[in-house]
C-alpha cells in the first residue's frame, strides 16, 4: 500500500509552505518521511529528499540523527501525547540541546529558560510535568522544544488542531513572529485552509496521498486550478462574506488500500472525463509558478511511476 506517492515540493530559506488536505491524505506521512521517522511498518520505497545538496533518504542513520532536530525539527499535533508524561518539560527541552550541542547542564538549563520565555512561559515552570499545563501552553512547550537547537526548518504538523479559536490565534501569531525573528523555514501542515491563508507564502494541496496543486497562496486561493482545490476553497464558510451555505464535494475520501484507478479524485470530480479514469495526471506547470495535476489543462502529462522528491535549500 502506497500511503504517499508523487509528492514533490521545494522550500526556500525563510519561507513558509502550507501542506493542506483532508484526513488520510498522507500529510503526516509526508512530514514523518522528511525526517525518516516512519513507523516500523512503513518505509520510503523510492525518492529523494534534498537538504542542502544532501539526499536525506540515502544518508546513514548516524548522519540523519545528527540532522534531526539540529537542522529539521517538528511540532506534532496533540502536544499532550507528544510530550513524555513522566519527565518534566525542562528535561525534555534540554535533551536535544545536550545531545546535539554537547553543552553542560547549567548552560542547557539556562537555554531552556530563554526558550520558555521566548514562547511566553515563565521559566520557573520548567520543573513542571506536561499534565500540569493547559493545551495551549503544552503547544507552546512543544514550540520551545522545536526551537531548542536553532533548526533551519520547522515542520508544524497540525499545530493548532483541537485548540480553541483564541488559543489557535495566539499560537499562530507566536509561530509567525518566531519565524520572522529567527528566519526559519516552515512547513505548516493543516486540514484547515483558512489557517494557511494567513500564514503561508506557498501552499501544496494533497488528496489521497497525491499532490494536487502547488503554488503561491494568494494565487491558489483566489484562482484555484484543480477541481479539488476549487471545491475545497468553496467549502469554507466566510464569516466576512455572504450568509450562504458553502458548496460541498459529493462523495467520500478514497481509501488508501484500494485507491481508484487513474486520477484519485475522479470519482468525486464533476469535470471528470474518460482519460481521468484511465490514466493518472502528473503534477505539471499549468500557469507560470503554478503546478497542478489535472488533465483539464493542456500539456499535463500522464504519470510515469515516479518517486517522491522534496528539495530544501
Amino acid at each position: 500500500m502506497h500511503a504517499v506517492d508523487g509528492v514533490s515540493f521545494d522550500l526556500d530559506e525563510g519561507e513558509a509552505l502550507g501542506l493542506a488536505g483532508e484526513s488520510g491524505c498522507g500529510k503526516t506521512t509526508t512530514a514523518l518521511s522528511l525526517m525518516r521517522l516512519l513507523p516500523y511498518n512503513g518505509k520510503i520505497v523510492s525518492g529523494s529528499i534534498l537538504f542542502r545538496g544532501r539526499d536525506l533518504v540515502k544518508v546513514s542513520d548516524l548522519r540523519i540523527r545528527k540532522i534531526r532536530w539540529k537542522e529539521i525539527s517538528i511540532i506534532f499535533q496533540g502536544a499532550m501525547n507528544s510530550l513524555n508524561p513522566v519527565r518534566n518539560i525542562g528535561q525534555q527541552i534540554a535533551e536535544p540541546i545536550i545531545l546535539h550541542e554537547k553543552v553542560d547542564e547549567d548552560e542547557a538549563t539556562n537555554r531552556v529558560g530563554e526558550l520558555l520565555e521566548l514562547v511566553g512561559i515563565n521559566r520557573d515552570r520548567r520543573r513542571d510535568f506536561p499534565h500540569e499545563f493547559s493545551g495551549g501552553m503544552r503547544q507552546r512547550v512543544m514550540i520551545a522544544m522545536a526551537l531548542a537547537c536553532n533548526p533551519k526548518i520547522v515542520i508544524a504538523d497540525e499545530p493548532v488542531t483541537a485548540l480553541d479559536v483564541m488559543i489557535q490565534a495566539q499560537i499562530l501569531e507566536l509561530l509567525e513572529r518566531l519565524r520572522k525573528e529567527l528566519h526559519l523555514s516552515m512547513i505548516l501542515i493543516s486540514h484547515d485552509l483558512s489557517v494557511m491563508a494567513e500564514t503561508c507564502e506557498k501552499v501544496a494541496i494533497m488528496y489521497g496521498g497525491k499532490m494536487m496543486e502547488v503554488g503561491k497562496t494568494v494565487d491558489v486561493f483566489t484562482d484555484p486550478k484543480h477541481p479539488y482545490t476549487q471545491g475545497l476553497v468553496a467549502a469554507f464558510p466566510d464569516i466576512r462574506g455572504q450568509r450562504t451555505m458553502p458548496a460541498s464535494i459529493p462523495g467520500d475520501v478514497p481509501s488508501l488500500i484500494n485507491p481508484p484507478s487513474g486520477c484519485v479524485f475522479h470519482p468525486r470530480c464533476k469535470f471528470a472525463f474518460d482519460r481521468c479514469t484511465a490514466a493518472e495526471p502528473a503534477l505539471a506547470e499549468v500557469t507560470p509558478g503554478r503546478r497542478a495535476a489535472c488533465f483539464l489543462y493542456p500539456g499535463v502529462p500522464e504519470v510515469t511511476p515516479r518517486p517522491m522528491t522534496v528539495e530544501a535549500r
Partner: protein
Amino acid sequence: MDGVSFDVKRGEVFCLVGESGCGKTTTGKALLRLVDATEGDVFFELPTEEYRRYEELRAGRAPDAAARIDAIRRKYSFSWTEQLAWDTRQILFWLGAVAAAFVLAVGLPALAAAGIPGALVNTGFILGASLLCGLLLGVIGSLPPTRPSARTPTVLALLSILAFNLFPIVAALGWPATLPGAPFDAPGIWATVWGASSFAMLLGVIVAPIAAGAASKIVLARRRETEGLLGVKMRTLRRRLHLIFQDPYESLNPKQSVFEIVSEPLVVNKIAHDPEEIAALVARSLEDAGLRPASEFVFRFPHELSGGQRQRVSIAAALALEPDFIVADEPVSMLDVSIRTEILQLMMDLREKRGLTYLFITHDLGLAWILADRIAVMYLGKIVEQGTAEQVISHPKHPYTQALISVVPSPDPRHLVKRTILKGERPDAVNIPGGCRFHPRCPVAFERCGWSADEVAEELRSLSSGGRLLRIIGIEAQDSRTVTLQMAPGVSAGVAAATLRQIVSENRDSRLALKGVAEIRESGDAIQVTLQSWAEPPLIELGPGNAVACHLVTPPAEAVPAVTA
C-alpha cells in the same frame, strides 16, 4: 455553569457559540438530562402565561412561591427531580437515636451479663439485643441527611462498624478476666455482641437505601398520579428531543449494525413492536438521512462506513423517533471539510421537511454565521451576548464576541483583518473572576468591570519589580477592595502616594487593572489603595431577542414621552 437562560422557538436554528469548556456541551446535555442541572429549569412546551408566572414567582417574595414554582416545575420542567427532603428535626432525632443505640448495643448486654444472674440473661437475649441495635445502627448510618444513593452512608456505616468493633477487641484483649457472677466469661459476651451486631449493621446498610429508595418511589408515584406529567414526561421527552453527538466514530457502538443502531430508540422506548413496522421506520429514517437505498446500509457495521455516512446514521437514529427538537453538539467538527456541507445541508433540508427545531452547539463562528437564525455566545458558563446572526456576527457588541469574530481566519488571503488576540487563557471553572467574568482578558475593560484587590496588587507588584516603584517594599491585598503598600524606612508616605498617583494615572491605559483604583491615600506610614466598586453586568435587553452582558453597553433609553407645555 450558571445563569444560562434562553428560549428556543419552534422551527428555528439556535446556535450556542463559545470556546471549549465554556459550558456549551454541558448546557446541551442538561437539556437532555444527561447531566443533572443543580439548579434552574429546562421547560418544554411551556405556555407563555405559565412562564410569566414562573418568572414573577422567582423574582417576587411570595410566601408560597417555592411551592408554586415546584408545581410548575412538576408539570413542565424535566431538569427537575423531586426530592424527599428531610428536615433538621428529623436529622437531630436520628442522631440522638444513634447515640442511644450505641449505648444499648454495647452497654446493656454487658451490664446485664455482669449484674443480673439467672435465666433471663442468656445467649439468645444478648444475641437478639445486639442484632437489633446493630440493625438500627446500620439503618441510621445509611439514611439521609445524605441521599440514599450517595456514597457517604456506606462510609459512615463502615466507620461506625469500625469504631464500634474496636472497643470489644480492646476490651477482650485487655480484660480477659471473667466477670464475677456472670454466666459467661467476658470474651464470650464481647464476641457475641461483636459478631451479631456487625452482621446486623451490614444488613442495615444494605436494607436502608433500598427501603428508602422504594419509599420515595412510592411517594413520587402518588404525586405523579395526582399532579401531572412527571411520570410520562421523560418518555415523551425522549421521543421529542434528540441529541446528535460530535464524534461519529465513538458515538456508534462498533458491535451494532446500522439496523440495530437506528431501531434501538424505537425498541427501548417501546414505540414500535411489530418487526415490519420497525423495519419500515428504519428504512424511512435512513433514506431521509440520505443513505439510499436503505437496504444497502442496514447490515453494515460502523467501521464499514465513512465518517460522513456514520454521521448520517446518527441523524437517522435521531429521526427514527420523529422528534421536534434536536440538539446537535458540533455535528460536523470531526468531519472533513469537503463533506461537512453535505451534512449541514441535510440537516437544513430536514428542518424544512419535518419541521425540526435545532439547538446547534459549535465553537465555529463561521458555521453559526451560515446556519443560525439566532446565536448565543457563552463565556465561562454564562451567556454574554444573544441575538440574530446578523446582530451578533455583523454588529457584535460584547468585546468577547468582537475578539472571537476577529480571529476567525478567512479563507481569502486578500482579506486581511485586524485581529484582536486576547491575552492568556480562559480561567478555571472553579476560579471564576468576580464582576464581569471576562474582565481579566478584556481589551477594553474599565473601572467598573470587577478588578479585585489581588489583581491590582499583582499589577502594582509587576510595576514595582520593573523598577517603577522604588520606595515601596510591601504590596499586600488587604481585603477584596483595599490594597496596602508598605514604605521603605525613611520615606514619607505623602510623597510616595503622590508618585503612585501619577504612575497609576500614566499607566491606566496600558495596565488595565490600574483602572480599578479609585482612591490612593496615606494612612500613617502606609498607603491605602481603595478600589472601585463593581457589579456583575446583567444581560441587558437591547431589542427584542438581542441582549448583551457588558458594562460598556447601555440599555436603550426609555422612550421619553414628549412633554408638551
